[in-house]
């Protein structure tokens, strides 16, 4: 470690052009032995392109790659693997019905008598590597029965089995729970101690500061700088990433709550398996107020959101929107009553990725004038409205005719936000509105939610990010196992919230988690 450690990998002047865009513009990058080097940048900054070049998936238009000082020429990922580079993609490349050992040795299987697959040897070898790096994993477990965090460990083992000494992790924490992320960081520290060099791609500032020895920041395809972790702060990194000062926590004036717009009493909801997951929730959100619903994922939040927006029938209890009894209403009735909904999963639910932006912006209102009349749709009006909204919400990278799937995550979320806010809802249910977004987009969403609050909307913010809950909410409710277990002011400490989220009672939090 340290500045004297030899450079194992060097990318010099890498340039990659795609039609209409320079994804990488003369990027230099080097990786020393025994270090974790974070590659930081907003969505679309060119991080993945650079790593795909290193992994042999793209060929650079200009520039060269040196491994241990020697010029390398990769035409496929096979060449990169042979040069000792392993990559863990964001979306795992595992076969669900096969075992851990089978997945790991795939394509390089140990054999008996030259032809027979030696299951025992494969499992032994996997166990050996796992022990060396202190992994706990059962070689005979099937992938489909593993958690996401465990599957990621299998991907890492796959790279180790192929004798990688350089490991690339592409946004590895995006799919993990906070606990799993902790475990991953532990693993990465051990790998480093065993002599691996690691490239850690992320757009999360705190992660880069926690795990990396050095940090390289990319912005719009250009390398801004490489700096050691010491001396770097979230604010300085954010400025490098975005190109200006970013407010990491929004400034908020206290809300002025008006009359209650969303009143829920004794709500019980079943999940798809028929289990009761929302067990008698009662809550009220007033006009001009953001109520944050904190909780660990899977404590009934999604089913609660579904019930509030008419996407799932409640088993018992009542929902009143602006005083009007609305329980049992369909999704369409709910949205006509004035409930806006920012879905947790914008790609699966919030957008039709194959629709144009104009069509997506009409998804909740295509039945009404001016979008349509007596069943006739007016595409020109859809486009005109989209043009206005895209400008107002600062959506980049697309015109009304662009397919929604072509936008980056942050811009997709702005489209969802624009659609829901433009409907002028009384109640806005926001499910993890900044999930997977980079700092610039998060700031935009947060500011917009606050200004909508000040417009007099009642906002229920459901989030797994404690920072977000604490910085936006006027009141905080905690949900645990389908029940509201506490209400806190926004001045509450993170520790106290965390305790309530894991089962309430002081001191019993650890075991309940």
């Amino acid at each position, binding site marked *: 470690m340290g500045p004297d450690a030899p450079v194992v990998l060097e990318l010099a002047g890498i340039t990659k052009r*795609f039609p*209409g*865009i*320079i*994804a990488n513009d003369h990027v230099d990058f080097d990786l020393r032995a025994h270090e974790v080097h974070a590659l930081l940048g907003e*969505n*679309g900054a060119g991080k*993945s*392109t650079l790593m*795909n070049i290193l992994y042999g998936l793209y*060929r*650079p*238009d200009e*520039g*060269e790659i040196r491994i241990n000082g020697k*010029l*390398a*020429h990769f035409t496929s990922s096979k060449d990169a693997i042979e040069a000792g580079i392993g990559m863990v993609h964001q*979306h795992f490349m595992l076969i669900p019905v096969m075992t851990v050992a089978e997945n790991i040795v795939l394509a390089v299987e140990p054999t008996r008598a030259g032809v027979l697959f030696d299951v025992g040897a494969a499992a032994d070898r996997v166990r050996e590597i796992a022990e060396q790096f202190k992994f706990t994993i059962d070689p005979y477990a099937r992938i489909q029965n593993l958690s996401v965090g465990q599957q990621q460990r299998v991907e890492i083992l796959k790279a180790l089995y192929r004798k990688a000494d350089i490991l690339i992790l592409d946004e590895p924490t995006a799919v993990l729970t906070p606990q799993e992320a902790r475990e991953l960081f532990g693993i990465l520290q051990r790998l480093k101690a065993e002599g691996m060099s690691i490239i850690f791609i992320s757009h999360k500032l705190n992660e880069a500061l926690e795990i990396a020895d050095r940090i390289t920041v990319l912005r*719009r395809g250009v390398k801004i700088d490489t700096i050691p972790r010491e001396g770097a702060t979230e604010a300085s990194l954010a400025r490098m990433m975005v*190109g*200006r000062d970013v407010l990491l926590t929004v400034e908020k004036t206290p809300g002025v709550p008006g009359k209650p717009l969303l009143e829920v009493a004794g709500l019980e909801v079943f999940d798809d398996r028929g289990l009761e997951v929302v067990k008698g929730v009662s809550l009220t959100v007033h006009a001009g107020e953001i109520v944050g619903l904190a909780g660990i994922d899977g404590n009934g939040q999604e089913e609660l959101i579904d019930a509030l*927006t008419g*996407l799932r029938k409640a088993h018992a209890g009542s929902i009143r929107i602006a005083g009007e009894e609305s329980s049992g209403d*369909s*999704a*369409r009735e709910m949205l*006509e009553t004035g409930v806006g909904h920012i879905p947790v999963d914008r*790609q*699966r*639910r*919030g*957008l*039709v*990725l*194959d*629709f144009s932006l104009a*069509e997506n912006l*009409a*998804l*909740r209102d*295509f*039945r009404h004038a001016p979008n*349509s009349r007596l*069943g*006739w*749709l007016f*595409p020109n009006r859809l486009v005109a409205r989209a043009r206005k909204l895209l400008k107002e919400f*600062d959506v*980049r*990278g*697309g015109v009304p005719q662009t397919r*929604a*799937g*072509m*936008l*980056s995550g942050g811009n997709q979320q702005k489209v969802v936000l624009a659609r829901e806010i433009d409907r002028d809802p009384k109640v806005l249910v926001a499910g993890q509105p900044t999930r997977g977004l980079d700092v*610039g987009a998060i*700031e*935009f969403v947060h500011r917009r939610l606050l200004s909508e609050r000040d417009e007099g909307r009642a906002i229920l913010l459901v989030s797994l990010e404690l920072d977000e809950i604490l910085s936006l909410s006027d009141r905080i409710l905690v949900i645990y196992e389908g029940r509201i277990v506490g209400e806190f002011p926004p001045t509450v400490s993170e520790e106290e919230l965390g305790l309530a989220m894991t089962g309430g009672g002081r001191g019993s939090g650890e075991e309940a988690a």
Partner: protein
Amino acid sequence: MTEAPTPAPPPLPEAGTDAAPVNFVERYGLLQRSGGVATALITASLAFLIGGLVVLATGHNPLSAYREIFNGTGLNWLFPWVNGTDRTFAAMNLQQTLLKATPLMLTGLAVAFAFRCGMFNIGGQGQYTVGTIVGVWVGSSWAGIPGPAHIVLAIVLASLAGAFFAGVAGLLKATVGAHEVISTIMLNWVAFYVGSYAFGLGGPLQNSTNVSVPISNDIATNAHLYVFWGDPILQGLHIGFFIAIGALVAYWVVLNRTTLGYEVRAVGFNAEAARYGGINVARSYVTAMAISGLFAGLAGAIDILGWQFRVGQLDVQASNIGFTGIAVALLGRNTAVGVFFSALLFGGLINGTSGRHLSADVFPPQLAGNLTLIIQGLIILFIGADVLVLYLWQRAKRLRAGKTPGAVEVGT
């Protein structure tokens, strides 16, 4: 909120959809988005190429066989230098080709419309059969009604019968989740046996004067569709051709200019997002299947009123107009224009390879009709093997991109 405009995301990395497509409908959707008209042309060309190899294997010249087939379609009528008796024959051949293509456009639409709602309608054949049964029943009854009213009545009732028949599959999917592929295949057999019974000896629609042949009564003469090109005695081209063109236009208008079409497309692309948008997904399934069946039933009616005038038990059992419609929709990529051209292609193939056009020294007659089926099968195979076509297409694109100036190899 960055200070300068962020460029559009690069097309290959970080584009929105990242879940791998899993089933046929999804993979086919991917194909639809990826290559425009080019993949359709590549698919058809590959099929013809391999069809040519089959001809070559039988010891004949594929080029002269294809030329004969082309002349058999009557498309040489379009060439101004073809004249005299050649031109007369070409006109007759072209009439036959368009006569074959007319129902194919409609059964193609029957598959395409369901596809746009995310369903695979294998039941075009059964819906077509139901249309012919109702068409011949109405057309051969009530001889007293004035011609135009009789025609409209037959067409409307046959189309509605097709819509109802397909709607059953939609309803089963919407209510109990029965997969439409399974239910439409089973409904095909229902239509097959109902038709076999109805026109069979002693069946309710069997010929009332000649009780020894398994064939229906003829429809009333004044219910025949008007023949606008060619000799009505020699199966000229009837105005059903324009009905089919009208259906293609209606298909485009409904999909792109109505809220119903918006709902259908939203459900087809992403049913969960459609539900979130307040769309009743179950009802969309029923509506889309019913409209699909309407097209197929219409095809049955205009075949009856236009040139068949009667249906035999064997016609019901041997017809594959509905199945060919699947290939028409797949090749036509579920667009109105695409369905028009691919119906023309298959209509031309069926007509061009029929025995009367080909001399045995150019082409073995026993292979002639089968070549249509071979090419049809190959097209479906290649569309199923979209990965291959996509791969070739992307590779070709990459090769072209690689030749752009300024590209520098690494490590040289």
